[in-house]
């Protein structure tokens, strides 16, 4: 009897936790925090702090496609299973972070190693920096000062920055990427909103292919064989699926409604 009552009393308590996601307002990440990813598959096992990866610095220098297609990083944190051993073999981070590759006038520092000196430990903490007081080579404020501004996300209009040539993200790494003639860019098209009087979405293939090519989205995220074939809703996007795979945490966030819902219906 006592147990039974306790269960009856506790059920509503647990039920209230189950749907705690709406009703309150979350903290919005600061511009330099946006697109930050904490990678902690094996770090603590090796006695190191988790890796703090910031998209803003890498995306200013490389396209999304390069890492997420050619190198093969998954689109969700901690699902790639990056191992130090693989980095040392030249996969994942180690593709570039091998102490040999050059970007501009800088040699890219080597990622992981089995043999290291006390001095080398400083290099470990350049990536394994979560919770550590590490002074990074690049300061967000100084680095982004000259880039065009936008609302939300990193507070930067990355699209304009690339268009104006203020950043020139590389899309090719010798030995990893393969040069093939590009496919013709598909036309921009409108996606009707499901809710009456909501402006239609203008989707631009052109703007997306600069960073993503075709392969980043098709066919896994969007089947892409026939227009209208993949059915999805805003609710699923908010859950991080479809457009939400990028536009919730790395590309400009869905809080900027009008940037997609831009064609008034009337």
């Amino acid at each position, binding site marked *: 009897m006592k147990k039974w009552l306790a269960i009856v009393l506790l059920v509503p308590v647990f039920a209230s936790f189950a749907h705690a996601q709406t009703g309150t307002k979350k903290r919005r990440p600061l511009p330099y925090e946006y697109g930050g990813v904490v990678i902690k598959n094996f770090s603590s096992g090796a006695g190191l702090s988790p890796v703090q990866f910031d998209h803003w610095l890498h995306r200013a220098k490389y396209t999304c496609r390069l890492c997420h297609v050619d190198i093969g990083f998954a689109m969700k944190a901690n699902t790639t299973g990056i191992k130090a051993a693989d980095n040392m073999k030249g996969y994942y981070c180690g593709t570039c972070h091998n102490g040999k590759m050059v970007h501009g006038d800088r040699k890219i520092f080597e990622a992981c190693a089995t043999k290291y000196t006390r001095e080398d430990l400083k290099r470990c903490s350049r990536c394994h920096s979560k919770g550590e007081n590490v002074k990074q080579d690049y300061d967000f404020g100084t680095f982004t000062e000259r880039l065009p501004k936008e609302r939300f996300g990193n507070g930067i209009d990355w699209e304009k920055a690339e268009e104006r040539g203020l950043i020139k993200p590389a899309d090719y790494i010798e030995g990893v990427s393969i040069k093939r003639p590009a496919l013709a860019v598909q036309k921009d098209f409108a996606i009707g909103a499901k809710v009456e009087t*909501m402006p239609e979405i203008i989707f631009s293939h052109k703007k997306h292919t600069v960073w993503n090519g075709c392969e980043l989205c098709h066919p896994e995220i969007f089947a892409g064989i026939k227009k209208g074939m993949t059915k999805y809703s805003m609710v699923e996007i908010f859950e991080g699926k479809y457009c939400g795979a990028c536009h919730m945490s790395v590309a400009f966030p869905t809080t900027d409604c009008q940037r997609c819902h831009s064609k008034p219906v009337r």
Partner: protein
Amino acid sequence: MPVFLCALVLILSVVAAEANWYFPPPPPPEEFGNLLIDRTSTKNKVKPVTFSHWSHRRKHTCQVCHSELDFAFKVNVSQITEAENLAGKYCGACHDGKIAFDHGKANCEKCHNGDRGYGKEKFPELASLPHSRSGNRIDWVRAMEEKTIAPARFLKVKPTPGIAYEKTLMLEAEWERVPPAIFPHKSHTAWLECSNCHPEIFNIQKKTTKHFEMIKNLAGEFCGVCHLTVAFPMSDCRGCHPTMKGWQ
């Protein structure tokens, strides 16, 4: 023993029902929406900051501060510091000596005064605005519609034109004899951006915003994020449930 537990269940359900009707006591109109911000002030041996919503919303829509300047919807959450203000963030976006009074020594007391009623002598300036039953006793929505006030929608970064979503929703009440609540998108989008409320406060699944009940509103969630202490308070039942009888 079972008798005791049954009594406990009964008491708990009465307490739970009671919470549906507990409205926080209203402050005087000139203090409604005033906040004392004291995340670090007292720790740093200065008085807490008084922030008056009424004096700011005359000139700026909610979204200027709560989207563009990124102030949280909860007091003492935003990481406002002197350094940030001096760098032009948060309050410093306007309080720079050009748009509004600066952060200099002469002006400390204007914010750091620890007095919730600070600046009330200016409240009568709002006497010409349309009146209402509750809160500041000012109908802010009508004031903007009638152009008695013309609050700005942005400071520096011009947003793309707003989405003209004007649908009025009728929300059926859970309780018998409580008439439906009427939710006009239009009067909300005049002040706010879609993303101020969606999807964090209200998801957009039709009729399935889970646990959206009066008791949650009164605990400061959902409508209660604003309609307890800043926008007209929920003790003004008919503000949302217009056909409610026997109440205000």
